[in-house]
C-alpha cells in the first residue's frame, strides 16, 4: 500500500495557504500605496482598507495553517 495515500492534507490547510498568501499581497499593496498613493481614487481611501483587511486575512491564514500543520486525513 502506498504510504502517500495516508497523508492527505485537509482542505483547511489549503485554505490557510491561500488566505496567508493573499493576505500578504493585499497587506503589502496597502503598505506600498500608503507611501505612494494610487491615482485611482476610491471612496474611504483614507481608511486604508488594504492595510487592516489584508492583516485580517493574513491572520486568518496563519490560524488555519498553524492549527492544521500536522493534521492529515485518510
Amino acid at each position: 500500500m502506498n504510504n502517500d495515500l495516508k497523508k492527505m492534507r485537509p482542505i483547511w490547510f489549503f485554505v490557510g495557504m491561500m488566505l496567508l498568501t493573499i493576505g500578504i499581497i493585499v497587506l503589502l499593496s496597502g503598505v506600498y500605496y500608503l507611501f505612494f498613493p494610487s491615482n485611482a481614487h476610491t471612496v474611504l481611501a483614507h481608511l486604508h482598507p488594504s492595510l487592516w483587511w489584508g492583516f485580517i486575512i493574513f491572520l486568518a491564514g496563519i490560524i488555519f495553517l498553524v492549527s492544521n500543520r500536522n493534521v492529515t486525513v485518510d
Partner: protein
Amino acid sequence: MPTIQLGFADWLVIGLYFVFVLGIGLYLKKYTRNENDFFLAGRKNSAWVAGLAFLSANLGALELLGMTGNTFQYGMYVAHFYWIGAIPAMLFLGVYMMPFYYSSRIKSVPGYLKLRFDEKTRVLNAAAFGVMTLLVSGINLYAMALVLHTFLGWNWDVSMWVSAATVAAYVTLSGLMSAIFTEIIQFFLIWFGLFLVSILGVIEIGSIHEVFSRIPPAYGTLWSTSANPADNGMLVTWGGVVLGLGFVLSFGYWTTDFLVVQRAFSAKNLRSARLTPILASFFKMAVPFIVVVAGLVALILSQDKQSGFALLQEGGQVKYDSALPLLIARYYPPGLIGLGVTALLAGFMAGQAGNISAFNTVWTYDIYQSVINKKASEAHLLRMGRVATIAGILISLVTAYWAKSFPSIMDYMQAIFSWVNAPLFATMLLGMFVKWITPNGAFWGLLAGMGSSFTLFLAVKFEWVERNLITLSSVSSDMAANFWRAWWAWLICFAVTIVISLFTERKSDAELTGLVKGLTPEVKEGDVPIYLKPGFIACISLIILVALNIYFW
C-alpha cells in the same frame, strides 16, 4: 462606464487563485483511485467539509450579483431567500430526509427514484436534471464573461475558454473531491473578498441604523408589509412568500437538487450527512449581511445625487446586477480589487464545477449505466465520468455562446428551476412519507407537474392568461409570479400523483424497506451528547431563524 484598471498586485491575486485550484486538482488526483472517489469523494468528508461545500455549491457569483441587484429592486424581502426560503428546507433535509437518501447508499437523487419507484421515473428526472444543469452551467459561463467584459474590459472568448478549461482540468483530474475543495476555498474568498463591501458601505452611510432610516419604509421590513402586496417592494403577499418560496421553491431546491444534495452524500457517515445541511444553515443565514446590506447601500447611494453613484443602464433599462461590481470599484483600492474580482471568479468557476460534477454523476449512473451500458465495469464508469466532464464543459460553452446571441435566455432561469425542482419535491415528499404511492403515480404526476410549470411560464410570458390570475392578487411582480407558479406546479404534481396511485399497482412493503417512513428503522444516535445531535443543532438554527424574522419583522 470606464473599465476597472487592475494593477500588479491584482493580477498576482488572480493568478494565484488559478495556480491554487489547478494545483489542488493535481494534488488530489493520486487520491482518486476508483469511481467512488471520483463521484462521491470517497464518502469520507466530515460534516464541516460537506456542509461548507453544500452551501458553496449554491453560493455562486450569479447568485451574489443577482441578489444584491434584487435587494436594490425589492428591498429587505430578498432576505426571505436566505431565511424562510432556505433554512426550514435545509433542516428538514437533515432531520427527516437524509436517513432515506444516505442509508439506501444511492449515488444520485434519480437513483433514489429508481429504488422507490421505477426506471422510467429515474430516467425522466435524470434527463431533466442533465438538461437543466448544462443550461445553468452555460448561462453561468456567459454571465461570468459578461461581468468580466463589462467591468474589466476582458475579451469574451478568452474569459470563457480559460475558466472552462481550468474547471475541466481539475474536475477531470479528481472529480467531486476537487470540486468540493474549490467550493470551500470559494466560500472563504467570497467572505474575505466581498463582505468588506458591506462594511465600507455602512461606514460611508454612517451606521446600520442610518442605512435603515434612509431607505423607503416598504424596503426595510420582512413581514409587516406582506398583507397587502402594494405595501412592499416585491409586490407579493405573505401567502406567496410562504407557499411559493418558503415551501415549494425552497424545499424543491434544497431537498431534491442533486447539485447540493451530492455534497451530503460525500459525508463519512449518516450523522455527518445529516449534519451537512444543518451546519450549512448557519452560514446561509449570514449571507444577507453581504448581499442585502450591499444592495441597500447601493440603493441609498443612488438616491443621493452627490454620491456620484448610479447603476448601469442599457437601452433605458437599469442593470440591477451592476450594483455589486460598482460598489467594489467604488471602495476597493488596487490589491483589494484583485481580491474582489477573484471572489467573483471563484464564485463563477466553483458554480460551474458544481454543476459539472453533478452532471457527470447523473449522466454516468442514471443515463449511461441505466440505459446505454448496463454491464459497464467500475473502471469503465470512471473513464465515462471523465469523458462526461469534458463533454459537459463543451456543451456549457456552446450554451454560453447561444446565451450571448440570445440574452433573454436569462429570463428563463427561474422557469428552468421551477420546471424541474418544484414538482420533484412533491414526488419525493409523497415517495418518502406515503408507502402506497405507486411508480405510475409518481411518473405521471412528475410529468404533469413539469409540463404545467412550463406551460404556466409560457402562458404568463406571452400573456395567454393574466398574471394576477396566478398570483391571486391585483398587483404583483415577476418574482411573485415565480413563487406562485412553483406552488401550482407542485400542487398539480401532488394531486395527479395521489389520484393515479389510487388506481395503479403498488410496490410491496419488502421492496420499500429503507426507502419509506414507517418501513425504515428509526435512526439511533447512540452515545452522542445531546449538543452534538442533528435534531438539537437544528433547533438552535430554527431559533436563530425565528429571532431574525422577529427582529426585522
